[in-house]
């Protein structure tokens, strides 16, 4: 039997790591869907109706799986982290409740209209539905990140006694909920979602374009895929540089407000100045894999880089080392390597965007088969980068569940037995593996099937009794 604390942490990690994929897809796709719907209703070319229909299918499947996995997370606070829920519920439960009522409701009800209602509701209401769905997905993230940012940077509360237990009481909602961390997290997360979806779109489109132009297979609707590729590249050109620039500001903010996490990100054990930014650090032995930058290791670093990053431009700045904190360090290796992998990917996405943009500008977008291969290989890397970013955020905060206030080990349900926790951990591992396999299967089927062709779009309109010529909305 696994210890209930370990099992609960593993279970929460597993369920969040899988869950986050689906909100990323929804949040990233939402602005694209609004744009496609707008162009379709304004009587743009047929390709926008295809785009809207095709990506809506992927959105709808992602939303369903996101819903069922999201309910699991909400319940886990009560089932596995009851001590945390009792302690911090007053500040943490409110944002979750408002998220459900304000955002999730908006998204779920209007998604019904958006997915099933094209032939049933007016163009105006249809467009409003696309906006409402998008607003719902983005507002969800607002409230979830308000709750999470409070755990990273708890403010606006006092400790009080209630029913013989110490709990937090809200004293200042503006300080608690609009704390600076929220803005950093929100911008970073939303931009990452759009960037990830842009990469996914680009990869899927590149596959079809490659198949058509390089392999010479006849691909249906190749115009559709070309347009998709171009739209994805535009989105990538905007989001990729923004993400790295913003990430730099965010890292500096972390070094100011969560120095222990920052020290773990850089694997700095002893307080030091002029700390180099290690790009890689080779361990000399297998055990040292878990201890990056142990003294005897060979590392490749930029002199003063980490100090420069932490202070915003001063290579001689001091970084507080992990050994100077009273609490044990978070699992440094995980945080160190995840941070490096995320940042590395961020730079790779900029390179991809510039490469694609350059080829497009030269009129060679469809001919560069190496670019197509790179895009295909990178289609899931945006989501991987998001996962790595969350690992840095959440693992880097350990051993605290509420930074500096409540330790994770003290937040677990007191009555939980190792047997129960192990049973559900194994159960979720099986269920979530199946869930991921099924989701991938469905998405791959949708991609293979491609967009609805001209014939199908016409048939749909005849069935619905709508116009059979022209584009809906241009009357």
């Amino acid at each position: 039997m696994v210890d209930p604390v370990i099992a609960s942490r593993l279970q929460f990690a597993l369920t969040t790591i899988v869950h986050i994929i689906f909100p990323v897809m929804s949040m990233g796709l939402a602005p694209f869907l609004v744009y496609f719907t707008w162009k379709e209703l304004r009587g743009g070319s047929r390709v926008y109706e295809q785009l809207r229909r095709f990506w809506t299918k992927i959105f709808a499947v992602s939303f369903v799986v996101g819903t069922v996995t999201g309910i699991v997370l909400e319940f886990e606070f009560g089932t596995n982290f009851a001590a945390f829920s009792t302690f911090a519920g007053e500040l943490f439960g409110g944002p979750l409740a408002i998220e459900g009522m304000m955002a999730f409701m908006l998204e779920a009800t209007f998604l019904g209209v958006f997915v099933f209602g094209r032939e049933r509701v007016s163009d105006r209401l249809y467009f409003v539905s696309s906006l409402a769905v998008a607003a719902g997905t983005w507002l969800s993230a607002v409230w979830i990140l308000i709750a999470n940012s409070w755990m990273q940077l708890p403010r606006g509360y006092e400790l009080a006694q209630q029913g013989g237990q110490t709990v937090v009481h809200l004293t200042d909602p503006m300080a608690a909920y609009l704390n600076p961390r929220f803005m950093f997290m929100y911008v970073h997360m939303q931009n990452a979602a759009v960037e990830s979806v842009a990469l996914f779109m680009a990869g899927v489109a590149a596959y079809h374009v490659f198949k058509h132009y390089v392999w010479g297979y006849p691909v249906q609707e190749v115009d559709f895929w070309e347009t998709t590729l171009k739209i994805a590249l535009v989105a990538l050109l905007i989001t990729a540089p923004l993400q790295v620039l913003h990430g730099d500001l965010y890292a500096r903010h972390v070094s100011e407000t969560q120095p222990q996490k920052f020290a773990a990100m850089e694997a700095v054990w002893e307080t030091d100045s002029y700390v180099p930014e290690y790009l890689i650090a080779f361990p000399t032995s297998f055990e040292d894999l878990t201890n990056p930058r142990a003294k005897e290791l060979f590392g490749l670093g930029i002199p003063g880089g980490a100090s420069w990053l932490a202070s915003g431009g001063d290579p001689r700045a001091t970084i507080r080392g992990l050994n100077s904190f009273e609490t044990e360090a978070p699992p440094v290796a995980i945080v160190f390597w995840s941070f490096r992998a995320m940042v590395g990917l961020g730079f790779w996405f900029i390179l991809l965007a510039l490469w694609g943009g350059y080829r497009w500008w030269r009129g060679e977008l469809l001919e560069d088969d190496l670019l197509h291969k790179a895009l295909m290989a990178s289609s899931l890397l945006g989501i991987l980068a998001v996962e790595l970013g969350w690992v840095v955020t959440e693992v880097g905060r350990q051993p605290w569940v509420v930074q500096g206030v409540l330790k994770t080990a003290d937040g677990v349900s007191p009555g939980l037995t190792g047997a129960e926790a192990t049973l559900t951990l194994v159960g979720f591992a099986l269920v979530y593996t199946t869930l991921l396999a099924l989701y991938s299967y469905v998405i791959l089927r949708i991609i293979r099937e491609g967009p609805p062709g001209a014939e199908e779009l016409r048939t749909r309109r005849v069935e619905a009794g709508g116009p059979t010529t022209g584009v809906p909305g241009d009357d």
Partner: protein
Amino acid sequence: MTEYGTFASEPLFGLPLPDLWFALVFFMLGTFLFLDGFDFGAGALFWTRDDPAERETILAAIGPFWDGNEVWLVVFGGALFAAFPAVYANLFSRNYLLLFGVLGALILRGLAPEMYEQRHDPAWQRWWGRAFVAGSVLAPFLLGVFVANWLTGTGALVTAAGLVVGVAVVALTVVSGVAFVRLKTRGELRADVRRYGERAVVGYLLAVVASLGALALSTPALAAALVTVPVFALVGLSVALAVGYVVALRSDQDLLALVASALLTYGLVAVVALLLFPVVDPGASLSVDDAIVSTFPLNIMSVGAALLLPLVLTYFAVLYNAFSGPVEPTESY
């Protein structure tokens, strides 16, 4: 603290906010049990149909709605967490394995229709059809067990009271499911499901009586709480509603039957709330006043809820209005 003035220290307009939030939490639970209840009921009816076209029709009938309906469970959980965090923590951790059963059933139920539509080969659809039915029956059953455990405060996984309350909730979802499916369909399917509704409503009444008996036997405190005027009034009202439901079905007034099933559901939840109040969690001996969050966040949430609930009802009005009337044969899931 002072800068927020009386808003931070006095209940809004002097209202009894803790009691109102107790009522609101149960209103949300009732709304979930009614709205997602007819989805669950439609899932149970799916089992009785062999014809692929009829099965498609049932899926198409709930297609645009179920996601929005299920959000009421999230909202119920969120409101309980926000207003009574200690209850949320105690109740959920005490019913640890049971709630994971509920989650498993909900995952199955949510995923199955999506999968069912992916491939049109019989074996695939047979299995996902079974998964859909299993999730649709198991979810309300386990929720019923959860509600019974909430009332008795037990930490045991399954009790006699839990089993009968579970059966009652499943029967209730079939009652509303039949009304909903009839409202959304025409022809043989609509005519044929009526008998299931009639049987289910009788089964529901019997299960409720058995549930009240089992609850009274399990806990002396509940036995005393049961013998009160409001509880008897609600039980009497349920019998009248059940009769009204059958009459409405027989005179083809499907909407009225659906309203009757909604009132039956809210009636059941009202009995649960009455049996508890002023305690919220008997298992941890937490009353409304013990478990409620402090005044300031409660005021904020109350303003939020007062602003948002009308909006949410508007969303549902738009949704149900857009898809009013029977499912068209061309509409696919």
